[in-house]
């Protein structure tokens, strides 16, 4: 184990908190992997070793799990993870072109990171926002109804050091490491930020109101 003493101590404290959520210790492995990713920006050899020691598993057993899931990165990830949905619906609505222009601009391909460590690009599978197609995700926040222009603007803003504001999410996009910590189950106090729902989520509700439909009498 090569984490310095203070990091190791903090990690152990967080791990204990994670273990308390489950009746069986091994269930903590996925959150633990998000946790080490929040420290190193990827699932590092140190991180794998840490999880293995905490759970009394071999590092091979931990790696076998880590490599199964696409959110665990095997190389240092960028501060901003820009994902473009290129599953059928979003791709056809324009996701393919967004991806082409974004990839050309940033100069890296799928699952690659810029040399300065700022931006990683990823072609995403369906992210459950189809009624907002074409969809992008930045550090797992929703960016809805995207165009090539709005996608390239994200890159400009990142390079200019500006905050990114998701369509349906927190007031600003937190860093990849900070997002990983939330996914490990550690509250960052941002749940009350942002909207309840975007317009498409309310489309049926709007229609019912417009028609004076009260729903099934209750």
């Amino acid at each position, binding site marked *: 184990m090569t984490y310095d003493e203070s990091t190791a101590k903090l990690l152990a404290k967080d791990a204990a908190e994670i273990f308390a*959520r489950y*009746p*069986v210790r091994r269930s*903590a492995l*996925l*959150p633990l*992997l998000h946790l080490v990713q929040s420290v190193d920006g990827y699932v590092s050899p140190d991180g794998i070793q840490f999880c293995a020691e905490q*759970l009394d598993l071999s590092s091979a057993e931990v790696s076998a*799990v880590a490599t*199964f899931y*696409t*959110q*665990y990165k095997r190389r240092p990830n960028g501060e901003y993870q820009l*994902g473009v949905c290129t599953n*059928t*619906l979003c*791709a*056809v*609505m*324009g996701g*393919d*072109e967004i*991806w082409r222009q974004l*990839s*050309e601009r940033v100069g890296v391909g799928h699952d690659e990171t810029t040399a300065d460590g700022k931006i990683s690009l990823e072609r*995403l*599978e369906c992210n*459950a926002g*189809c*009624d*907002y*197609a*074409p969809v992008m*995700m930045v550090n*797992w926040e929703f960016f809805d109804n995207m165009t*090539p222009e709005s996608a390239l603007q994200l890159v400009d803003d990142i390079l200019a050091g500006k905050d990114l504001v*998701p369509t349906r*999410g927190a007031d600003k996009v937190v860093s990849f490491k900070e997002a990983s910590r*939330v*996914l490990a*189950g550690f*509250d960052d106090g*941002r*749940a*009350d930020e*942002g909207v*309840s*729902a975007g317009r*498409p*989520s*309310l*489309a*049926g*509700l709007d229609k*019912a109101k417009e028609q004076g*439909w009260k*729903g*099934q*009498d*209750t």
Partner: protein
Amino acid sequence: MEGAGHVTQLTPVLSATWGLEHSWNFDTYRAHGGYEAATKALAMDQADIIQAVKDSGLRGRGGAGFPTGMKWGFLPADDGGPRYLVVNADESEPGACKDMPTMMAAPHTLIEGVVITSFAIGCDHAFIYVRGEVIHVYRRLMKAVAEAYDNGWLGTNIKGTGFNLDVTVHAGAGAYICGEETALLDSLEGRRGQPRLKPPFPAVAGLYARPTVVNNVESIASVPSIINHGVDWFTSMGTDKSKGMGLFSLSGHVNRPGQYEAPLGITPRELLEMAGGIRDGHTLKFWTPGGSSTPIFTDDHLDVPLDYESVGAAGSMLGTRSLQIFDDTTCVVRAVERWTEFYKHESCGKCTPCREGTYWLDLIMRRLETGRGTMADIQQLLDTCDSIAGRAFCALGDAATAPVISSVTLFREEYERHVTEGGCPFDPAASALFDYDSAPEEAHA
């Protein structure tokens, strides 16, 4: 359903509060009748709650449509050990986008459903397995759980009844297969998300090999409304064997894509009209009734009532009621090629028919879409599907064949054009929702 001329009205129940300011907060939810069903349920006999859900005819809203109350009823008699409720919030089916807005805007609907269900089945620790790629949904869920503890709806001796319940919200890490209930359980146990052999079914040996109920978000979120308004109210909506309301998700080339909560049995024609129709100047070409895993339909199927039986009888599946709608500019080969790539990517690798079959389907689809295919490839697609469907370990393999077989059946001529014309006859720019010039150069792949 009633005869011609009848207009089906939308029935917002789960979505009723989504437009409110801070709709996700406990106080907002409570002010609109939240936790009244839980209050009622905690005073009921457990068996009566299960019976009510059985009588309501509620069927699993995650795609399979298995009767929810019956699933609960499969749990063996209490042996004194733990039993679990696991909510499947891994919504990842291409086209499905209903559970995420539910949990983002009204997470307490789900938490209240978890309280009632857990009480009914005798569970004192429930889990919500939410996909990891939606951080704000996860934040809202965690907050709702914390608020439920603060207000005495979770924890020990809930509302003085002696009932104890803890809820753990667990983030996945990116794997479509974890939406399969046994793969989800393996993942929740800290393993690779690969499906388990059934039997034993989760009801007998699920999480940690203990009796477990796995239900979709919308199924559990529907429970409070049934307890609140009664079985008769619920069964007054829907069709003979498909009762109640459900969220219908319209996406793609329609003027107002979004969530439309309606009685099961509403027709796609009605939904399309409510959504403002196909985008101007275009016509409907093909659509999925229940996500990419359900055989595609065309405008010949616009009057098929969207209930389990009718969609099944017409040759597809109701699935997750995810209507992905494509107009006449869309190349069906391109669309299916991309879905096929998805299934290849998400195949867990456990069984050979799916792992190898999706690999070959993807290769052949890609060859055809890029104009390098042959007429024999079209038959090869169907033959390869024959080697997957019914032979794979779980439903993912069958799902991968659904768009391929249905598109070849309905649009064989279009496949052939890709061969005879040596390329895709469609301009992708015409399908996009913004203007751009089709660029000649290849993107970084």
